[in-house]
């Protein structure tokens, strides 16, 4: 046995562990040095320019107007308040954009799979056109070419109680009267009741096999109870209707053209991407699954709802998440057409007026980081709920 040589003790230089340790120490040193270098320069530059760091500027009066604000805001309010207004604007446009883009995407994705040749071609044209044109260009198009070309308020397009002109879309504004809480309470009650009904129906079906149209009846319950509560409270909701005066439209709720352009561009553009995701997801479900469902005697709608959709969703959700994230981040392009969202208010006006580059840009990055993180956390949770549970 002694003739089997022991392997040479490897040189210290060739030991994988030592190598990786050395490499990592060097890497860490470089990274730390670069950070130190940049920050020492920053400190020196800020000192020489007389810019004081810190977030105290948020308590100073902002002094600039913001066109679109969902909470009260005047020029006398602070930068902090302006930041809040901009944050709300970003969140609102992202949320609405996600909803509309999903609707457009599902419709277009299904249309592209349609057996109707013409419908499939039209959907393909829509998808391939919008996907391949920059979003910023589309926003410019909607804002400068379409909405700016609308007539003046005097010659507005009129439809029922809606007006459409250069200054935006005017719609009736709901005004809440006394007793509205009763109606809200009725609505809540009806939702609780319908959830209870669905749970009961499910339990009964597993126990006895008897089926109950739970979804349709819960819809009925919600409508009837809410209407009843409304009637009991004496219809506590009136509408402030917009009406035409000589040069302008008075009253009502206004959707400014900036808002409309950003929302239109974001939802049609992202919708085209979502359409492709939906199509790929449905195509990924093996045809055998549909055949198996049919041979079990399920009808078409049940096959789609119970067999195809749950499996397609597993493929759809992860890329859909990243599209939602993209949409939220792309809402920052609204800055280019003066929609007062985070980037335009904080990194545009506030930065220009105060010179607090580090704080404003840092604040923006923090907000977008949090927004991205919360969307992806929610979608990860949903994904986990939907994913395949293996034994």
């Amino acid at each position, binding site marked *: 046995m002694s003739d089997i040589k022991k392997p040479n003790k490897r040189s210290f230089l060739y030991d994988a562990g030592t190598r990786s340790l050395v490499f990592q120490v060097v890497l860490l040193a470089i990274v730390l040095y670069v950070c130190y270098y940049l*920050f020492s320069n920053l400190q020196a530059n800020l000192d020489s320019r007389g810019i004081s760091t810190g977030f105290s500027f948020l308590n100073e009066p902002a002094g600039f107007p913001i066109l679109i604000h969902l909470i009260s805001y005047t020029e006398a309010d602070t930068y902090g308040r302006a930041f809040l207004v901009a944050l709300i604007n970003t969140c609102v446009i992202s949320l609405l954009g996600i909803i509309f883009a999903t609707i457009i995407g599902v419709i277009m994705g299904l249309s592209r799979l349609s*057996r109707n040749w013409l419908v499939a071609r039209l959907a393909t044209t829509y998808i391939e056109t919008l996907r391949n044109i920059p979003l910023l*260009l589309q926003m410019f198009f909607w804002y400068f070419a379409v909405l700016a070309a609308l007539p003046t308020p005097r010659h507005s397009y009129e439809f029922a109680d809606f007006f459409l002109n250069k200054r935006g879309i005017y719609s009736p504004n709901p005004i809440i009267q006394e007793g509205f809480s009763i109606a809200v309470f009725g609505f809540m009650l009806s939702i609780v009741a319908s959830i209870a009904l669905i749970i009961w129906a499910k339990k009964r079906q597993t126990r006895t096999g008897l089926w109950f149209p739970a979804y349709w009846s819960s819809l009925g319950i919600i409508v009837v109870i809410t209407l009843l509560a409304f009637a009991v409270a004496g219809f506590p909701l009136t509408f402030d209707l917009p009406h035409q005066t000589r040069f302008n439209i008075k009253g009502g709720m206004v959707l400014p053209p900036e808002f409309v352009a950003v929302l239109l561009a974001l939802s049609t553009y992202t919708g085209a991407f979502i359409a492709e995701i939906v199509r790929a997801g449905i195509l990924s479900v093996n045809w055998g699954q549909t055949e198996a469902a049919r041979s079990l005697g399920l009808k078409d709608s049940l096959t789609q709802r119970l067999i195809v959709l749950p499996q397609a969703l597993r493929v759809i959700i992860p890329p859909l998440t990243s599209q939602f994230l993209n949409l939220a981040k792309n809402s920052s392009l609204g800055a280019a057409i003066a929609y007062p969202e985070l980037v335009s208010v904080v990194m545009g006006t506030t930065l220009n007026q105060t010179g607090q580059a580090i704080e404003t840009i840092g604040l923006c990055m923090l907000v977008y980081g949090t927004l991205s993180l919360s969307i992806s956390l929610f979608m990860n949770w949903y994904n986990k709920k939907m994913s395949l549970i293996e034994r």
Partner: protein
Amino acid sequence: MAIEFKPSPSLPPPSKSVGVVAWIRHNLLSSPLNVVLTAFSLYILYLTIPPLIEWGLINATWTGTSNKACTGGGACWAFINSYFEQFMYGFYPSEQTWRINLALVILVLLVAMFAIKKINKLYLALVIILAYPVLAYYLFSGGVFGLEPVETAKWGGLFLTVLLGVIGIVASFPLGALLALGRRSNMPVAKSVCVIFIESIRAVPLITILFMASVMIPLFLPEGLNFNKLLRVLIGIVLFSSAYMAEVIRGGLQAIPKGQYEAADAMGLSYWQSMSLIILPQALKLVIPGIVNTFIGLFKDTTLVYIVGMFDFLGRIQAANHDTKWLGTTVEGYVFAAFVYWIFCFGMSRYSMALERKLETGHKRN
């Protein structure tokens, strides 16, 4: 005497199942819902196509020196015509634009040389990646060999867009591969540095990075040291797209079976050898669609430099829209821009499909 069996000729298929009529019945009118959908689609086509042709072709004006020439009621393509050079080259001096064209021709010739079999492709690629950019840089900016210097602030138009796109693509690819390898590494420090970089870049929109590049980079450098805006914006674009590229390539790396890594180790290949010879070629092939999608995204995202005050293709068009001589030609400008961007992006996506088919080594079942 054998009786010869002669089958009677088969009957033609029923006329309802072949030809145009059958195709229409099957594809357009197969159910009541489909009839409605077809009618609806035809109505949409009727509403959009004829007015569009009338506006864009029949009533269009092609030449002229101001919007007064456009009287046909259609599109005013004369606007594009008279601004064409600015849209292409920005404010690059017009007697110097041959330099840009020359650089483009050289690039096309170099790329075309890949088709010649005798040439070593590795050397050619090295020439394109290392030598060509130096040549192109001196051609564009001048100041040597008697070329008139042209400052980067004058670069613009489609030239700038393509420049940003190409440099972004070429530089972000190796950086992305490196980041992806780093993220999959066993070394905790390398891994966490890469993860932090990738995730923090991906969490924020490009526009904040561009703002950072144009506003904050000067603050982070010692006084006196500063470089021009084009370079700062380029750094921003490259960092941004390399983070996305890294995630795409990581997807490919994860899809490679463990056996490939172990086989490479068993052959005695070093880490870099096994990565560059075994793992990356397979991983990259898997993620071609993702890589090209990132490129397309990057190309579209170059429009954002307009927001930080650079006049790329879209920026030039946007600026030309304010020309009082050509008021009312906004739509034409945007349609032209959309057309050009669409050609680039659609072309890239078709090319990636062709590449995928070419590299397909036949593991698919059908």
